């Protein structure tokens, strides 16, 4: 038996539960705990300038490494600063361990006088999958263990634990043998639960696949969580089935793969739209059918599709689509079960599937050809797509670690992305929160020692966490920040342009030289205004020793065409409420953007949206 303080017990419990990184921001009350973590455990403590940023860093670390990390903050406002970081983790199902100090007194629900007695745990209620308040020092290590366990249960997600300040100094006698490495979380990786699918359902799925004429695989974040991407690629190659990915599954199938439809979800353009309208069977692997993927429902998706839905969480089944066959299990295990069964029955593939895959592949090639032609025109101001295209020339695909941030910027990145694998691109798809790029890049970099992280961000989103440039410099992290500076909150500006007759309010930003700001923080920085300067700037940045920033002036009048698909879901039921006079004026404004831009938009409407008979569906 050994007598330890609350601080030491927390440190021991964190190590036992496989947490190797703790992110925090400086706070006097946390100093003893932080020094305890540093001196008595091998945990790396990263101090950010702000609690919110620290939370996003922890999230980024988990996304890249597949290992646990925790965020630790003081109470009140410091704890609430975590909210947006935790919300991102919740929406994207990331097992983030959030710990806060709290008031020793229980919350006083009479909302009167002492506002410090508020219900701190309650604020986290809607954005965590489990939360608790430690009541005594005896229950501290059990609560932490339970929290870590809950974070990986079924659908993963963040958990939050409040620890009363008074417990930190209390002492307790513990049995050291109990603090050995736990079963479900090891220092190496968050272990996936390899749940096998029900044989009966597998049989049904196999016969359904065999009878399909135009099957499609749809990979979600579950494929990454289960580390099943290689198995899925083997499956699609063996049976010649084309595959698309959700936003969260970005990277599971490299875009240059013959059977890949291209970038994630609707950024793929016509290949995706045609696939989700003409397919008769969709094998959905670890997909939550969320809004950004069109819910798996009309208007984007055909209502004639049969779904085989594979997910580890029974609560996901039937949430938006009603699958013909549902399999509860781990994606990696189930996909191997399916291929073994198909192979066992001597099934190879169907010639029709090959031509179906080829047809979609041609559509993908057609779109990339069109997009590349458009960006290589002689634009007076740099096109975002061109800036992306140049990036592919300076970095090898296996070396690429790409963090995206912003409104239109991640859409441009996804449209013009160079090919890469899973856990190489990072963006909070569920919340689509702008401004988290810098802390994500820090978290991702810490999870990949020695490798360079590229952050592509917009000008609006860049400043959200600009203070963390100090953290980048202090830790001397090799991060290249690329800003697409179009002097606007451009996703919203695009909406004001195209739906409110160009009534631009509150979405213009001044022309700011962000390279100057980066230099102020002690980073190497440069501003690029000409296409020919992009490549040398990238090369300098990538070969520099530490962090570097490139501020690229881009054209605010470029809108990603695939936003039109997104709008159909986002503004579902709202389009008919818009002022028709303003809509007509808006269409004239769009025509005024020039022949090339209009041509791109019209081809998108013709090739992608016309397929789903937009007018009839809007009318209905």
């Amino acid at each position, binding site marked *: 038996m050994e007598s330890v303080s609350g601080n030491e017990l927390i440190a021991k419990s964190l190590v036992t539960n496989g947490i190797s990184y703790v992110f925090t921001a*400086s706070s006097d009350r946390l100093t003893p705990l932080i020094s305890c973590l540093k001196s008595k455990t091998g945990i790396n403590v990263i*101090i950010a*300038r*702000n609690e*919110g940023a620290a939370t996003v860093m922890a999230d980024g670390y988990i996304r890249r490494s597949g290992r646990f990390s925790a965020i630790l903050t003081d109470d*009140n*406002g*410091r704890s*609430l600063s975590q*909210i*947006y970081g935790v*919300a991102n983790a*919740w929406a994207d199902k990331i097992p983030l361990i959030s710990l806060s100090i709290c008031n020793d007194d229980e919350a006083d629900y009479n909302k*009167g*006088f*002492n506002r*410090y007695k*508020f*219900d*701190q745990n*309650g*604020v986290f*209620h*809607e954005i965590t999958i489990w939360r608790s308040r430690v009541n005594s020092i005896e229950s501290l290590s059990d609560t932490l263990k339970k929290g870590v366990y809950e974070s990986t249960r079924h659908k993963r997600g963040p958990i939050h634990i409040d620890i009363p300040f008074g417990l930190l100094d209390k002492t307790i006698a513990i049995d050291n043998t109990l603090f050995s490495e736990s079963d479900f979380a090891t220092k190496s990786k968050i272990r996936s639960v390899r749940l096998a699918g029900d044989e009966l359902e597998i049989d049904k799925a196999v016969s359904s696949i065999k009878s399909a004429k135009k099957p499609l695989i749809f990979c979600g974040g579950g494929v990454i969580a289960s580390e099943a991407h290689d198995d899925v690629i083997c499956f699609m190659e063996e049976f010649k089935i084309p595959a698309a990915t959700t936003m969260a599954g970005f990277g599971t199938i490299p875009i240059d793969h013959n059977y890949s439809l291209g970038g994630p979800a609707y950024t793929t353009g016509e290949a995706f739209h045609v696939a989700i309208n003409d397919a008769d069977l969709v094998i959905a692997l670890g997909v939550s059918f*969320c*809004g*950004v993927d069109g*819910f798996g429902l009309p208007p984007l998706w055909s209502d004639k599709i049969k779904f085989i839905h594979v997910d580890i969480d029974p609560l996901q089944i039937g*949430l*938006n689509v009603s699958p013909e066959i549902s399999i509860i299990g781990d994606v990696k295990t189930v996909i191997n079960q399916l291929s073994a069964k198909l192979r066992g029955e001597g099934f190879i593939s169907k010639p029709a599937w090959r031509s179906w895959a080829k047809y979609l592949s041609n559509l993908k090639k057609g779109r990339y050809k069109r997009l590349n032609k458009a960006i290589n025109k002689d634009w007076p101001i740099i096109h975002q797509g061109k800036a992306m295209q140049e990036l592919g020339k300076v970095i090898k695909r296996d070396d690429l670690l790409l963090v995206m941030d912003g409104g239109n910027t991640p859409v441009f990145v996804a449209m013009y992305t160079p090919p890469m694998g899973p856990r190489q691109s990072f963006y909070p798809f569920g*919340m*689509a*929160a*702008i401004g988290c790029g810098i802390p994500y890049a820090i978290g991702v970099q810490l999870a990949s020692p020695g490798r360079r992280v590229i952050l592509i961000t917009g000008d609006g989103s860049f*400043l*959200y*966490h*600009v*203070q963390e440039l*100090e953290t980048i*410099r*202090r830790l001397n992290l090799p991060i290249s920040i690329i800003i697409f500076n179009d002097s606007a*909150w451009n996703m919203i500006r695009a909406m*004001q342009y195209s739906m*409110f007759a160009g009534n631009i*309010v*509150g*979405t213009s930003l*001044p022309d700011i030289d962000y390279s100057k*700001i*980066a*230099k*102020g*923080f*002690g980073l190497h920085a440069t501003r690029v205004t000409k296409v020919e300067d992009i490549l040398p700037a990238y090369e300098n940045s990538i070969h520099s020793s530490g962090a570097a920033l490139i501020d690229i002036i881009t054209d605010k009048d470029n809108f990603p065409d695939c936003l039109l698909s997104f709008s159909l879901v*986002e503004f*579902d*039921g*709202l389009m008919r409420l*818009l002022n028709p006079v303003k809509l007509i004026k808006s269409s004239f404004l769009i025509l005024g953007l020039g022949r090339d831009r209009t041509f791109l938009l019209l081809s998108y409407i013709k090739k992608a949206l016309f397929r789903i008979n937009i007018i009839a569906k809007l009318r209905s």
Partner: protein
Amino acid sequence: MRIITGGELLLSVLADCGIKQVFSIAGEQLGTVYDAFGKFPEINLTVPRSETSAALMASGYSASTGYASVSMATVGAGVVYEVAGLSKAWFNYLPVISIAPQLQSWKIKPHQENLQGCNQDEIFYPITKWNSIIYSWERIPQIVYRAFREALQGIQGPVHIDIPSDVLFRYKILTEKKRRKIMPPAEKTMYRGNIKGDPFFLKKACDAIKESERPVITLGQGFGRPGRYQEIKQDLNRLGIPVITTTISSGALCGEDNCYAGDISLFISAASGLELLKRTDLLLVIGMDPYSEHALSIIKDSPNLKGVIQIEIDPSSFKDNITNLCPVHSDPHSSLSYFERELKWNETDLSTWRDDFNKNCDLLALELSKELKNLDELFDSLKDISSCNDIFIVDGRELSLAASCFLRKAVYKNLFIMDDRDLPGAGLPFALGAVIGNPNDNVVLISDKDSLFHHIRELQSAVSIGLEFTIICVDDISNNNVADSSLVLQSMGCNVKEVDRLSIKRDDIFKTKKNIPNAFILKSKSNSPN
């Protein structure tokens, strides 16, 4: 007769309620609201660089002007950024109206994996006085009026409203008849008179004060920076009882108020401070939980203390676990002016006790100042040059303590001390809110480097809008920060001057450069990373 969208109706109700300032970042679901801004020139829209700052600026605006203000953020991602900022308004009892769009009403509660969807109203529940969702176009005015009532009446605080995007996008015909029905005049939707109090309890309180020889007043949030601040200040000075400010009212009184004894932090930091507090025989507690402050909870067992008189605008907040001689349910101005009228004190009646108490407070301040030796020069110079047009905002743990000690005798319009327990680094956006709300006053932000860096992006907003104010950044107590603050502030567009010691003239500090922030970096120790 007009055809108007929900967004326009919302702005027209806000304009009717007297809102002049909205802090917001645009979002797709806010489309119709932004589209309608042009029709309301009386409402100024300020776009900060993060939603957290929008709520903090609104807090600064409310605190420094006394008016309610509006913070708007878009669904999901915007709203979750806003939470931390709005918590400042919650901890500081400030009437900030937070408005956010939600997804379509047929897609919420529960959410089905919608993009950016979450039950955002429930996130706000613990840190708002009241919140609601507006499901119908016609109820926009009714619920917004109610939000204002909830925020401003009783103990003030932030409120939150969610409006589904279909309600904001829907357009309807607003006839004069319909307008009269759904939109009563704003002045009729809220009680604006005094709460005079029960004469029985007022008299009882008055008798207790008459009998008391050593009364002390402690001010809480109910002193009401938003509201009738100046009137109450005059009442306190006329009454002549020594006044102690607490964490929340810190800086409400200044050196020219003869009743002002000092801040509660003086009494906490030295044992003699508690002894001094224990000498009091009657505690008049205005708008606060008497024992929320540690120092006050200690004196409740003092043998000298005969009782407590609690003056409170919200009857549900009377405490029964104290020697509450009489709970006075009234607004502070009404009860204080009643006491003044009834007591008919001469200037000399309490002057001996007050002078003695204040003298002892001077000694406490002197004692504390020895511990804060490195900051005395800064605050002494500020004390000498400050005027009644100055608004000071102090951010940072050590600086806050120093400000309540050294600026005790300074003259200023307002001093806001950012409580370290609330939200670190709130000072900069809070100051910007104060600058926007008080264009004719001089706003000075005194912050340590660590606190300033939390929301340093907002310097860019200040430069873009052309806001003129002064930043004094103390660069010697920051933790583990390798950035050169002069370079960073300069790169953000501030006019920066490095000073070794701050013995400055008023003209240096306030008349340096127009329409951009003027920053003074005070470096007294090396700030190598530890």
